[in-house]
């Protein structure tokens, strides 16, 4: 419900911010009503678009004094509803913080504002022969602030790490308007590792206003192999054996048959549509490193029963091999009116059983599913196909997704590898964590935001919520019924 201009909140904000950067009309709020998880929508009271730290500080102080919730928003590509507005709250957009402040070629770092797009950093670093390694598939659009808040990963994170491994320093404002510098321009700093704590904290502990990222040398060369398999287990073994051979590929991705077919239909990358699974394995580094590893990987793939192995001959072909994988989401998206992207992680050895379980669940729920998999690091993205126009089908898809995540936890994995908990996986948090751990999370939240105003209702469930879910578990032997209101 948009706010009236006579309210205290508006009156105080307009004292320091020009009215054109305070959005209040329903039309201007509409683009902010959801993020990448568009099944959830909510209009906020208002959206504010600050341009500098002082303005952010002022907004936070006003909201704090009036007890108004604040939801930070980068590019709004979150797939877990992390940036979903709160009805009684303000959306604080960092969109105008879009400057690359400096690049230090000698120390191999870049100081950037949070609204800078992920890919823009690598583009700006290119003249120095450097790049920013974490490369989420959304990198053309997503913001580095959002990446820090979600600890985003990408295709190359097996070798180069997640966001947490690739940042040095943050400037962060707490809800009370305290400005903290966390980490440093050096490799360590005294005190607690707040840099790690803030990374992946989903906008719950503070607003990130500046980030210093590490830059890496652009590899001299990158080569990719594509291997086809007639059996998922064989593909899984091939992954384990590449690693057992002492090789950490730059990227190691798997697609199952429905994903292969969807991608092939969409992008015509020449993928073998009769394969049960394909592996894409990228090696990068110096020419000599890559050519020696290429031979080893090829042997491993052969020994593990690959039915076909292709090596991209040049850069153009390498990009084609990748194009299919990179467009897997939109490609699968064409198979049904809607798809729901899951993000569980598992110990890789369980891949076979987990995929089998997903297929069983697919039959039980009557919904198709396609799987893409960051195979190197055990991060599975099942894409559940559904049609939101059919009554109950969204709830069915969510129920199916929840079951997949619970199974990931059962085999020793996690409910989210890179997309975050947000509003989406809040119930599965009750499955992954015990009461004491959840209490500890609340205590951490309390240490930074005692009034609970930053991104309320996200990431960490209230204990009574888990208790209710738990009780229902016992009663019905399953998660609560879809028609029960979840949020």
């Amino acid at each position: 419900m948009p706010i009236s201009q006579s309210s205290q909140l508006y009156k105080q904000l307009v004292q320091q911010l020009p009215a054109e950067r305070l959005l209040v009309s329903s039309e201007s709020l509409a683009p902010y009503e959801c993020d990448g998880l568009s099944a959830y929508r909510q209009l906020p009271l208002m959206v504010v678009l600050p341009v500098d730290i002082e303005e952010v500080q002022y907004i936070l102080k006003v909201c704090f004094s009036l007890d108004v919730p604040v939801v930070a928003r980068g590019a709004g590509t979150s797939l877990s509803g992390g940036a979903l507005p709160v009805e009684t709250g303000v959306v604080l957009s960092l969109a105008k913080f879009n400057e690359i402040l400096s690049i230090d070629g000698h120390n191999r770092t870049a100081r950037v504002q949070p609204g800078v797009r992920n890919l823009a950093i690598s583009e700006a670093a290119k003249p120095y022969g450097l790049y920013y390694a974490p490369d989420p598939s959304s990198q053309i659009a997503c913001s580095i602030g959002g990446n820090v808040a979600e600890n985003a990963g990408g295709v190359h994170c097996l070798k180069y790490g997640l966001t947490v491994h690739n940042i040095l320093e943050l400037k962060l404002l707490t809800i009370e308007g305290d400005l903290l510098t966390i980490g440093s321009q050096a490799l360590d700093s005294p005190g607690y590792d707040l840099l790690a704590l803030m990374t992946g904290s989903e906008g719950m502990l503070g607003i990130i206003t500046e980030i210093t990222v590490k830059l890496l040398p652009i590899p001299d060369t990158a080569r990719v192999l594509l291997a086809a398999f007639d059996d998922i287990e064989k593909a899984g073994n091939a992954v384990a054996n590449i690693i057992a051979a002492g090789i950490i590929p730059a990227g190691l991705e798997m697609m199952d048959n429905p994903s292969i077919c969807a991608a092939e239909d969409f992008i015509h990358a020449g993928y073998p549509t009769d394969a049960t699974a394909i592996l894409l394995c990228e090696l990068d580094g110096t020419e000599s490193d890559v050519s020696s590893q290429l031979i080893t990987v090829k042997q491993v793939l052969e020994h593990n029963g690959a039915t076909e192995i292709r090596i991209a001959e040049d850069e153009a072909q390498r990009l084609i091999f990748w194009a299919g994988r990179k467009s897997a989401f939109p490609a699968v998206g064409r198979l049904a009116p809607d798809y729901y992207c899951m993000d569980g992680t598992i110990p890789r050895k369980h891949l076979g059983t987990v995929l089998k379980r997903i297929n069983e669940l697919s039959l039980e729920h009557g919904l198709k599913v396609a799987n893409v998999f960051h195979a190197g690091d055990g991060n599975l993205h099942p894409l559940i196909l559904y049609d939101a126009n059919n009554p109950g089908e969204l709830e069915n898809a969510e129920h199916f997704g929840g079951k997949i995540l619970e199974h990931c936890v059962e085999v020793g994995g996690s409910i989210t590898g890179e997309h975050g908990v947000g509003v989406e996986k809040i119930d599965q948090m009750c499955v992954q964590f015990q009461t004491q751990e959840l209490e500890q999370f609340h205590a951490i939240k309390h240490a930074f935001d005692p009034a609970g105003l930053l991104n309320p209702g996200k990431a960490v469930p209230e204990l009574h919520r888990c208790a209710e879910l738990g009780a229902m578990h016992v009663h019905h032997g399953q998660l609560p019924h879809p028609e029960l209101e979840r949020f």
Partner: protein
Amino acid sequence: MSDDSQQLAQQVRDAFEKKTPLSIQGTQSRSFLRYSEHGNKLSTLEHSGIVAYEPTELVITVRAGTSIASVQDTLAEHKQSLAFDPPRFAQSGTIGGTVASGLSGPSRPWMGAVRDHVLGTRIINGKGDIMSFGGQVMKNVAGYDVSRLMCGAFGTLGVILDVSFKVLPIPESSSTLVFEYDAQNAIDHVNEWSAQTVPLNGACWSAGKLYIRLSGTDAGVKTAINTIGGDVYTDNDLLWDELRDQKNSFFNNAGYWRLSLPPATPVLSIEGEWLLDWGGAQRWLKSSEHPDKIRQMTVERGGHAEHWHGKDKNLLRMPLDSIVHRYHKNLKDAFDPAHILNNHALYSDL
């Protein structure tokens, strides 16, 4: 080689009820890095052993009292290692101490620090609750990253029980090259190489010589040697192990500075004896200059200074900014409300 977690948790619960402080101890190899030590001893040494190791998953889970050396030996049987190569000091340093102190070896700038390899932990908080965070998988963003928060917290937030680490293959080949360079030249060269795809894995300068370690495939290391020149140094392993464990002649117990700086920072004009490690990002200094001057010059360059093995513990760590300090105390309260875990290990009040 046993699971002592229930006994340890009981000890913490008792201490919580009686509000009696505890001092968590492994082999004490890093205790010189504590501001001060208080309370009844809580030993993690009985809680030792490898809980799980799956080479092809690249994960090992270890109890806190296990020695670093035995973990590295087990991993080496499968041609893997903890790539941050933590200092062992005394051969018996423990995994718990490694994580609590957050120290990493000479490969740190290129391979990452302890915290970069920690995937999950099981800890006891100050109320005696046993809790698990993170896990045994490479990626996990469910909940706040408590596991990494334990790294470098010196036990002030929790007793570390078990740790899961990402492990990496030991590179096929490793060679050390030596160059006659002055310190500035050494800094310039290493940072230039770091900005190219040279397979660096160590870079230290001492007494007019720059030593660099190259690691990777046989072919890759050979190519790099041909490209960047220098003389091959044969005492490869000894040099790096002594540097890591501070056993070479530079280090003595008379007190020295550790400056953590952006790596390409030019040579600082502070009189004294220097040893540069981490390609310039970690610099050791023996100097009689006034501590204020050393600290100030380091801070101006974006770094911080620690005084190791000194008489005055107030020089051990630089004070935190007052606001940041306040949030540290809030966090301490969140984990250890009765203030019984390793009080004063970091600062006089933390």
